[in-house]
């Protein structure tokens, strides 16, 4: 509806009107308003003239071709972003290194043939169970262990308790039990354990450790090479 106090059109709406970006009904309302509003019509026409001039500006000719020469792109690596042999080699070496280290650690944990196991503290109850095990096997295995102390079977200890002798828990052996896992026993002052940490003896390194060392060195070289040749 056309009212006397109808507002004048803002420049953004006029701009959209020029570009025909208004809804058809809105566009029609504006057209109607422009028919009878002098002020808005002048505004519209000057804006429209400006846009018209801009739209008819001629294209400026390029002064020369802007194609690139080999010289221009010399500083850019040939394979950008995509993985070349360098990246693949680094990834493979890193993966192998991780694998070899894992194997090394695995071997260390479950088969400590090359390194002595440091003595650990264990709750007394566990050792009690172990001594019970020992008692059930004949006395002979206990006697075989050179550094073994006498293991008191539970019954004897109970009898001992009756007699007032306390049930003592003593360290039994450092060697792995027959059919059992390695026993970690509390240290006793009478049993000197060999030093837990030996000096790393490179001559006795297993072959996979040499392999790990070699892979780590190779990986370091590849990474340094890539860093030197990275794209600016």
């Amino acid at each position, binding site marked *: 509806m056309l009212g006397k106090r109808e507002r004048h059109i803002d*420049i*953004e709406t*006029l*701009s*959209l009107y020029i*570009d025909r*970006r208004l809804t058809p009904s809105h566009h029609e309302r504006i057209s109607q308003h422009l028919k009878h509003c002098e002020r808005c019509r002048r505004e519209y026409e*000057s*804006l429209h*003239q*400006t*846009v*018209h*001039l*801009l*739209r*008819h*500006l*001629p*294209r*400026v*000719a*390029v*002064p*020369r*071709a*802007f*194609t*690139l020469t*080999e010289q*221009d*792109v010399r500083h*850019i690596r*040939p*394979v*950008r*972003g*995509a993985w070349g042999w360098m990246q693949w080699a680094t990834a493979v070496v890193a993966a192998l290194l991780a694998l070899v280290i894992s194997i090394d650690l695995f071997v260390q944990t479950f088969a400590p043939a090359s390194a002595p196991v440091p003595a650990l503290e264990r709750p007394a109850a566990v050792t009690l169970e172990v001594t019970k095990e020992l008692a059930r096997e004949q006395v002979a295995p206990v006697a075989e262990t050179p550094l073994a102390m006498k293991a008191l079977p539970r019954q004897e200890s109970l009898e001992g308790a009756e007699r007032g002798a306390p049930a003592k828990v003593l360290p039994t052996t450092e060697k792995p039990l027959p059919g059992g896992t390695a026993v970690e026993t509390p240290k006793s002052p009478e049993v000197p354990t060999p030093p837990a940490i030996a000096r790393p003896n490179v001559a006795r390194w297993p072959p996979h450790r040499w392999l790990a060392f070699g892979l780590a060195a190779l990986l370091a070289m590849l990474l340094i090479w890539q860093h030197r040749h990275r*794209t600016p």
Partner: protein
Amino acid sequence: MAQQPVIPEERLVQAAKRGDLAAFNELVLAYQQQVYNIAYRLLGDPDAAADATQETFIKAYERLHQHRGGSFRSWVLRIVTNTCYDVLRKQQRYPTQSLDNLYADTSDREPDRLPQWQSKDTSPEEMVLRHEIYRVIQEGLLTLSPEHRTVIVLCDIEGLSYEEIAEVLNIPVGTVKSRLSRARARLRDYLRTHHAELLPQAYRL
């Protein structure tokens, strides 16, 4: 507008990403006129525009791996507008340079060619007049802020849609609309103030 290359653009882009310089140069030939025109209208100087155009295509080649699908044109135009923004920002720190651009007598180096669609029976007076109008419009553009100048160049001179402009400049469409309307109003005010006599002529072009 930019000529379309004979080989599908996507194939050229893929080849260029694999290091095929010849394929990349096909893209350069397709886009160089548009890129140069945008740079010229934004910077107002043919030498600066040439430098910006060269820099745009070198950057585009360097960063090809960053273009992951979508409009290659928008991607290239974004590089040229950002390159020009950097130049303009540097100019603002040394304002005397931009004044030289504005007032120097560049008539001997005027790159604005008279349009090819000009008919044979255009009088010399009309040719001079049109030439004058083009020069004045470029002057008016240089009085706008970089943001206003860019939207008006992309929309009214290069014919990009609001949506394409939003993609190139990485701004919402609403911002494009409001910026464009204000830019047009400012340029209109400049023409009305300095060259009012030109405005009625415009309709005869």
